[in-house]
């Protein structure tokens, strides 16, 4: 019998995620408080404008100088500082070298990848960027900062075309940033070596079945499986198939799994190198073990809209999924349980998780600005931008940023050296099945004394 009372979902660990939507807004969702916080929208950046709808995002998840690159429908690519929201620089997508303006006007960006590791001269150059349009034009170019002197020589962009006909729908960059993958409607998966700009591998469609019918090629999502191996690729098709390709063995798919009946819209690999999370157009989220090709399990949580993007937290066993039902959902991967859901009012296009967000940083800022934070949260919950609050908060953040960075660096180094997880996070994982911790304020008090 359906229940008549509400059930509260268990809370999330401290988390910060950025979501982009079809009105061009970038919303920052944070979970504060250890062991059982509810996510709340802390900031909203950008005016709501449908022509600025976000098509693709790329997040350089670095400790120092993180950058969020956002490709908009009106042809602009913006680079933002994800901590404060200010635009570092804006470039046109169809820049340099495009002779045919009318053709490129309808050519929307499909893939955007910001190179995290290549950072030559950080004072004038922001970094290198790989863009891919629907018609298959791929371009690697370096992006200068907006405040850099204009006479600085920028390397000439490297452009080539990935496909003749067809429509590129998905692209992926391998974590070592030497190889890029493209696939789409009537576009077989191609793997390109970025250093030499050559196609090193292309997939072959599966054999026609015993009736002689072959399914047309239509890849809707793709990703590299391991972070240190560019040879294994997982792709999702419009015909509800999840396929594993191995470059070293054959051009056809090694494993092909049929998952329900809707096109696969998002694929994300796990940090352990063999699990993938798959989201479909009807809202089904599931994880597969790619070693065997079996489904590990489905994520049940009332997701009723197409899942557009999945993001995995690098440290914690968490994934965030967002989609057309305007909810950002955070799931626990071990138990496949919904931790919490936030309603974000617009059709969401992508989500990224900021992994360098810790609650301890917050505790430093909490006593200094308790009022402005709560005000910002209240107002941004109502959906409006409040410039004053934001600037006040960002000013304060800038003041503490210098001191805080040192603290963060120290803590991060400690974590890396010791090799164990933060004790606070361990507590959260242990306590999750038992109960929601309500007296976490005590702990916070203790920490402040320290």
């Amino acid at each position: 019998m359906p229940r008549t009372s509400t059930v509260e979902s268990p809370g999330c660990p401290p988390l910060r995620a950025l979501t982009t939507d079809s009105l061009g807004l970038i919303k920052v969702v944070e979970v504060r408080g250890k062991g059982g916080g509810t996510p709340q929208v802390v900031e909203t950046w950008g005016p709501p404008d449908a022509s600025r709808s976000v098509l693709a995002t790329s997040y350089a998840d670095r400790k120092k100088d993180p950058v969020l690159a956002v490709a908009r429908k009106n042809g602009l690519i913006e680079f933002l500082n994800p901590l404060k929201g200010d635009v570092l620089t804006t470039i046109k997508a169809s820049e340099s070298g495009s002779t045919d303006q009318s053709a490129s006007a309808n050519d929307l960006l499909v893939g955007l990848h910001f190179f995290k590791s290549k950072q030559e001269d950080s004072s004038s150059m922001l970094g290198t960027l790989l863009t891919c349009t629907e018609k298959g034009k791929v371009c690697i170019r370096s992006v200068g900062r907006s405040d850099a002197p204009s006479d600085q020589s920028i390397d000439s962009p490297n452009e080539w075309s990935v496909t003749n006909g067809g429509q590129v729908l998905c692209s992926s960059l391998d974590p070592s940033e030497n190889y890029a993958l493209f696939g789409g409607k009537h576009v077989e998966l191609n793997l390109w070596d970025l250093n030499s700009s050559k196609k090193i591998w292309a997939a072959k469609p599966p054999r026609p079945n015993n009736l002689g019918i072959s399914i047309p090629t239509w890849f809707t999502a793709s990703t590299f499986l391991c972070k240190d191996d560019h040879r294994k690729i997982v792709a999702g098709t419009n015909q509800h198939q999840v396929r594993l390709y191995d470059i070293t063995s054959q051009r056809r798919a090694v494993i092909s799994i049929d998952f329900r009946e809707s096109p696969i819209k998002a694929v994300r690999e796990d940090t352990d190198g063999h699990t993938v999370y798959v989201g479909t157009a009807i809202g089904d989220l599931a994880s597969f073990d790619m070693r065997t090709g079996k489904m590990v399990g489905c994520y049940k949580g009332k997701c009723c809209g197409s899942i557009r993007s999945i993001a995995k937290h690098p440290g914690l066993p968490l994934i965030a999924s967002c989609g057309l039902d305007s909810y950002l959902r955070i799931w626990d991967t071990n138990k496949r349980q919904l931790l919490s859901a936030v309603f974000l009012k617009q059709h969401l296009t992508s989500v990224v998780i900021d992994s360098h967000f810790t609650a301890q940083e917050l505790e430093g800022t909490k006593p200094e600005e308790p009022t402005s934070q709560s005000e910002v949260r209240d107002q941004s919950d109502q959906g409006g931008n409040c410039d004053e609050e934001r600037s006040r908060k960002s000013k304060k953040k800038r003041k503490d940023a210098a001191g805080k960075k040192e603290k963060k660096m120290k803590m991060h180094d400690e974590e890396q050296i010791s090799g164990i997880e933060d004790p606070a996070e361990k507590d959260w994982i242990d306590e999750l099945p038992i109960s929601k911790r309500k007296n976490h304020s005590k702990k916070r008090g203790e920490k402040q004394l320290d």
Partner: protein
Amino acid sequence: MAKEKKRKAAEEAVDGDDYIEREDKNPKKQKLILASQIKNKEKRSAVYAKLKHEKRVEKRKKIKARDAASKQALELGEEPPEKMVPRTIENTRELDETVCRPDDEELFAGNDADEFSAVLKQQTAPKVLITTCRFNSSRGPAFIKELLSVIPNAQYYKRGTYELKKIVEYAKNKEFTSIIVVHTNRREPDALLLIGLPDGPTAHFRLSNLVLRKDIKNHGNPTSHEPELVLNNFTTRLGHRVGRMIQSLFPQVPNFRGRRVVTFHNQRDFIFFRHHRYVFEVKEKKEGLKDKKSKASQGKTEKKAIARLQECGPRFTLKLVSLQHGTFDTKGGEFEWVHKADMDTSRRRFFI
């Protein structure tokens, strides 16, 4: 559940609801028997009638006492005792965070940017194409005839053997703003597919409880004036979107002289469609009719304007099954909202 009821009733059997107390051999033990446990029909019905009578007497007493208390309070000039409001499912609906708020800028921006804004801002006039599924029989054609009279600027095309995706293409070429497909199942219209054009969302509704015009008593005949549209209770974001979609079927300049109104009333996720003609009348109500003795009060006559409704047109209910982003493509399209069984966890939760 019945066992619980019995146990609970046994605990509070003081008022003697359905139980009769029977003195046993052992005066300490008192067995409480439900009236329905008596096997003899005559005896059972007698006992039950007695219980019912007792209950009715109790109820009348309570009402009398309540009325007397409120009258007394009014006379004394105090506030009358609080009126008891019955608890309904709509009263106790679960708090929904997706409810549209009036101060939401994003909502207005989203409205400007969505697929219906061209029609709703009167930049294009709505042009509706009505068609059916491939096998259309019995009530289907009658329903479509009535739909054509309800929606102005609607045209009916026979389905033939065209694929729906092709129909969408042809309609786009001919500059239609939406397509309605009436799907028939077992000789009865069963589902309604509302496709917005050029790339608007596709709403799939389940149609039930259809009553045609000829089956309505004292029905009226609709005129061809543009109707007024009443959309009730589309509170959540999803409801707002569906409401705008329905609004985009009708022209935005209603002809008030035509006195014709079309209502889509949403309650508990069911959308009720009604089509009325109304007329305003001025009625003279005589005051003080209760006091027959005094003739002085007969002079007072209050004029009240009331609206009388005459129902015309079909009557049906719709339930949203899925809302798909983009034109009709169930296999390859993305869904914005689809009803799933594990969403029905609470009896107090509704989505539109």
